[in-house]
C-alpha cells in the first residue's frame, strides 16, 4: 500500500526534486482523503435523508487534519462537545421560548464560556469547546422564531455533526494513515540521543552558561511536545495506550535527571569561578566514569540497555572514588562540604539516569503488554486564568453586539452572522496574532465563496446526479485542503477557503438555487467573521504579550513556594512538569536569543535548581530522625526561601541567606552525633546556599555583598 518512491536516475541528479515530490505526495494524499471524506459524508447524509448535508460537510472541513491521531482525538472531544452544545441549545430554548433578549444573552454567555474553555485547554480538547458553542448556536438560532421545532432541529444537527465526525475519523484512520506514533517514537529517540550526547560530552565539566540555557530550553520543549504527542497518540493506537503510563513515567524521569544534571553543573561552574579549581576538578574526575559509561551515544537500538547496565556497574564504584578524591583535597571544611554536596548530587543524577535509561530500554525491547504496574504520574499543566477570562468577555461582548444589531435592525440573516462569529471567535482565540489570522481567514473565506459561486451558478445547473456533482465541485474544492497543507507559508487561508466553500455551497437534496440567498448569506458570514476580528481589536489578546509573560513569570517563581509548602506526595513530578509547561508557555512567543528570553531562562533555571533542592530537603526532613530544634531551623530556611521567590528583594534575600546559613551551621554541629540523617540534609542545604549565592543566576541582583557578618551561634 505504501508508495515507496523508486530511485529514478533523475532524482539522483536533482536532489531537491526528491524532497519536493515527497512533500507534494503527502499534500495530495491529504487532498485525496479530504475529498473522499467530503463526498462520503455528503452521500451518506443524503442517503439518510438528513436535512442539511452541508452541516456534515462543514464538520468534515473543520475536523480533517493531516495527522490521523489528531483527527481521532479531536473527534472524541468533538462528539462530547456536540452533545453538550445541543443539550444546552435545547435547554436555553426551553427556558426562554418567548424571551428573545434573555435567550440571546444566555446564548452569548454560553458561547463565551466555550471560547474561554478553548483557550484554557490548549491542546486538541479545545476543539470540543469550540464545537459545544457552535452546536448550541446551530441548534437554537434557526429555531428561534418557532421554538416548537427546536427538538427536531437539535436531533438533526447532532446527527449531521456526528456523521461528519465519524466519516472524517474513519477516512483519515483507514485510508493511507499518516501515523503520529512514528513521530512520537522518532522524537523520543532524538531526545534520548541528544540528552546522552549532552551528558557525556560535558566531560570537561565546564559548559558555558549560555549553552546550558539553550540546552535547557531545548529539553523543556522536547518534554512538553512529547507529552502533547503522547496524549494524542493514545487515541490512535491501542498499543500506545497500553504503554501510555510508562511513556509518562519516562518523561518525568527524564525531567528529574535533567534537573539534577543542571544543578551539578552549576555547582561545578560556581566552584571554578570562585577559585576552587581543585574541588571542581575532583568533582569532574568523579564524573569521569559516568561520562565513560555514556559513551559513545549512538542511536543503536541495543544501546539503552547497555548504558543502563554500565551505569549500574559504575554506581557502586563512585562511593570509594569519592572517598579517595576527598582525601586528596585540601582539608578545608567549607570546601569539603561543597564537595560532599556535589557528590550527593552526582549520586542522585546517576541513579535517576539509570532509571531513565532502563525504562527506555524496556520500552524499546518489548512490544505490547509490559508486566507489572507502574507508578501513576501525571504531567501537570500549569494554566493561567487571565487569558481564558479575557476570551470569555470578548466573545460574550461580540455575540451580544451581534444580537443587539440583529434585534434592532431585524436583519433576516443575523443568525448566519452570529453563527460564523461563534465558530471563529473560538477557533481564533488561541492564536497569538488573531488579527493577522482573521485577515488571512477572511481572505481565504472570500476566495472560497467566489470559487463556490462559479461552481453553484455556472457548473452545477447543467449537471445531474451525484457523480456529476463530484466532477463539478472537486477541482475547485480541492484547492482548500491543498492550501491547508501549506499552512506555514499561508496560515489560515486554506481553512478559510474550505470552510467558505462548503458553507456557501449549502448542499441540499434536492439542490436549491437562489442567488439572493447566496449573496445575503455570503455578506452575513463575512460580516460575522469581521466582527470577531474587530473584537480582537477592541479587546486585544493577551497571549504572547509582555503582560502575560510577567504574570506567568510570577507564577513560575511561585513554583518555589509551592515546592516549599505543598504536600510532599508526588510533588517532584508535579513540580517538574508544571515548571516545564509554564516555562514552555512563557518562552513560546519570545524571540530566540533576545535579552528577554535570556532573563526568563535564567529565572527558569534558578527556580528549577532551588525548587528541586527544597523538595529533596523536605523529604530528608520527613524521613530522618533529626533533633526537633534542627528541624525547626530547617523549616524556617525552607519558608524563607519560599518567601524570597514569591517576591524577591534584598531584605528577603538576606533573611533567606541567614536562615539557610544558620541551618547549615546547626546541622554541621550535630553532624558527628547523627551522621546518617544529617548528611543528605546538609548536602541539600549546601546546594540551596550555592544557588542562593550564585552571582550568575537570576537572583544575582538581590544579593547583598559582604555577608561575612557573624551568624547566630
Amino acid at each position, binding site marked *: 500500500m505504501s508508495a515507496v518512491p523508486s530511485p529514478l536516475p533523475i532524482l539522483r541528479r536533482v536532489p531537491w526534486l526528491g524532497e519536493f515530490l515527497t512533500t507534494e505526495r503527502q499534500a495530495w494524499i491529504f487532498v485525496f482523503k479530504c475529498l473522499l471524506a467530503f463526498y462520503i459524508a455528503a452521500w451518506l447524509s443524503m442517503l439518510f435523508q438528513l436535512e442539511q448535508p452541508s452541516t456534515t460537510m462543514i464538520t468534515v472541513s473543520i475536523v480533517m487534519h493531516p495527522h490521523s491521531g489528531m483527527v481521532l482525538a479531536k473527534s472524541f472531544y468533538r462528539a462530547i462537545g456536540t452533545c453538550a452544545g445541543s443539550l444546552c441549545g435545547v435547554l436555553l430554548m426551553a427556558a426562554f421560548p418567548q424571551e428573545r433578549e434573555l435567550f440571546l444573552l444566555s446564548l452569548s454567555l454560553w458561547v463565551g464560556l466555550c471560547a474561554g474553555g478553548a483557550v484554557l485547554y490548549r491542546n486538541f480538547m479545545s476543539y470540543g469547546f469550540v464545537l459545544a458553542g457552535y452546536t448550541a448556536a446551530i441548534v437554537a438560532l434557526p429555531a428561534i422564531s418557532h421554538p416548537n421545532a427546536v*427538538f427536531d432541529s437539535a436531533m438533526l444537527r447532532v446527527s449531521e455533526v456526528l456523521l461528519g465526525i465519524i466519516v472524517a475519523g474513519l477516512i483519515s484512520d*483507514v485510508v493511507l*494513515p499518516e501515523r503520529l506514533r512514528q513521530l512520537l517514537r522518532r522524537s523520543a529517540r532524538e531526545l534520548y540521543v541528544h540528552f546522552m550526547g549532552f551528558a557525556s560530552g560535558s566531560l570537561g565539566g565546564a559548559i558555558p552558561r549560555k549553552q546550558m540555557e539553550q540546552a535547557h530550553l531545548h529539553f523543556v520543549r522536547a518534554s512538553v511536545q512529547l507529552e502533547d504527542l503522547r496524549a494524542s497518540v493514545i487515541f490512535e493506537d*491501542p498499543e500506545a495506550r497500553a504503554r501510555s503510563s510508562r511513556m509518562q513515567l519516562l518523561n518525568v524521569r527524564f525531567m528529574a535527571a535533567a534537573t539534577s544534571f543542571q544543578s551539578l553543573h552549576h555547582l561545578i561552574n560556581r566552584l571554578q569561578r570562585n577559585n576552587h579549581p581543585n574541588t571542581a576538578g575532583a568533582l569532574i574526575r568523579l564524573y569521569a566514569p559516568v561520562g565513560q559509561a555514556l559513551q559513545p551515544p549512538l542511536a543503536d537500538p541495543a544501546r539503552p540497555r547497555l548504558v543502563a547496565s554500565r551505569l549500574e556497574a559504575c554506581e557502586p564504584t563512585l562511593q570509594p572514588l569519592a572517598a579517595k578524591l576527598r582525601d586528596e583535597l585540601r582539608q578545608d571544611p567549607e570546601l569539603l562540604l561543597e564537595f560532599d554536596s556535589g557528590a550527593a548530587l552526582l549520586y542522585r543524577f546517576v541513579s535517576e539516569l539509570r532509571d531513565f535509561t532502563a525504562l527506555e530500554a524496556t520500552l524499546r525491547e518489548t512490544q*505490547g*503488554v509490559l508486566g507489572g504496574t507502574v507508578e501513576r504520574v501525571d504531567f501537570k499543566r500549569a494554566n493561567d486564568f487571565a487569558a481564558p477570562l479575557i476570551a470569555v468577555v470578548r466573545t460574550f461582548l461580540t455575540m451580544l453586539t451581534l444580537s443587539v444589531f440583529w434585534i434592532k435592525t431585524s436583519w433576516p440573516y443575523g443568525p448566519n452572522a452570529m453563527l460564523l462569529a461563534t465558530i471563529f471567535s473560538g477557533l481564533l482565540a488561541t492564536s497569538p496574532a488573531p488579527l493577522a489570522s482573521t485577515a488571512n481567514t477572511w481572505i481565504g473565506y472570500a476566495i472560497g465563496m467566489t470559487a463556490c459561486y462559479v461552481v453553484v451558478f455556472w457548473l452545477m445547473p447543467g449537471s445531474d446526479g451525484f457523480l456529476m456533482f463530484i466532477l463539478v465541485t472537486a477541482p475547485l474544492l480541492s484547492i482548500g485542503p491543498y492550501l491547508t497543507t501549506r499552512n506555514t507559508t499561508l496560515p489560515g487561508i486554506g481553512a478559510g477557503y474550505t470552510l467558505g466553500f462548503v458553507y456557501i455551497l449549502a448542499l441540499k437534496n434536492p439542490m436549491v438555487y437562489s442567488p439572493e440567498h447566496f449573496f445575503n448569506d455570503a455578506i452575513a458570514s463575512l460580516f460575522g467573521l469581521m466582527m470577531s476580528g474587530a473584537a480582537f481589536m477592541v479587546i486585544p489578546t493577551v497571549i504572547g504579550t509582555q503582560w502575560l509573560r510577567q504574570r506567568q513569570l510570577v507564577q513560575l517563581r511561585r513554583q518555589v513556594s509551592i515546592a516549599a509548602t505543598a504536600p510532599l506526595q508526588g510533588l517532584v513530578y508535579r513540580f517538574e512538569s508544571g515548571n516545564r509547561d509554564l516555562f514552555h508557555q512563557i518562552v513560546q512567543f519570545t524571540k530566540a536569543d533576545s535579552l528577554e528570553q535570556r532573563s526568563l531562562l535564567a529565572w527558569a533555571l534558578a527556580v528549577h535548581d532551588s525548587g528541586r533542592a527544597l523538595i529533596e530537603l523536605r523529604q530528608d526532613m520527613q524521613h530522618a530522625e533529626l533533633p526537633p530544634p534542627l528541624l525547626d531551623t530547617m523549616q524556617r530556611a525552607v519558608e524563607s526561601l519560599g518567601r524570597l521567590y514569591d517576591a524577591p528583594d534584598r531584605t528577603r534575600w538576606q533573611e533567606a541567606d541567614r536562615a539557610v546559613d544558620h541551618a547549615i551551621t546547626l546541622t554541621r554541629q550535630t553532624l558527628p552525633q547523627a551522621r546518617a540523617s544529617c548528611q543528605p540534609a546538609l548536602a541539600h542545604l549546601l546546594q540551596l546556599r550555592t544557588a542562593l549565592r550564585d552571582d550568575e543566576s537570576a537572583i544575582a541582583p538581590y544579593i547583598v555583598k559582604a555577608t561575612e557578618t557573624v551568624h547566630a551561634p
Partner: protein
Amino acid sequence: MPHEIALADALVPGILLIYAGCLLVLWVVDTIVGRYGLYRYVWHPSLFRVAVFFVLFGAAGLLLYT
C-alpha cells in the same frame, strides 16, 4: 428488541443503543488486543478495527431484528 425505545420520554431508535453497545464492545476488544500486542499480526490495524466493528454491529443488528 423494540424498534424504538423511550429514553426520558424521547423516542430513540433501538439500533442506536446497539450501535453504542457495539462501540463499547469494540473498545474492550481493542484494549485487550492492544495490550497483548496482537496487532502485529494484522496488516492494517485500523481497517481491521473497522471490520471488527462492522461484523459486531451487523451481527447484533441482524440477530436482534430478524
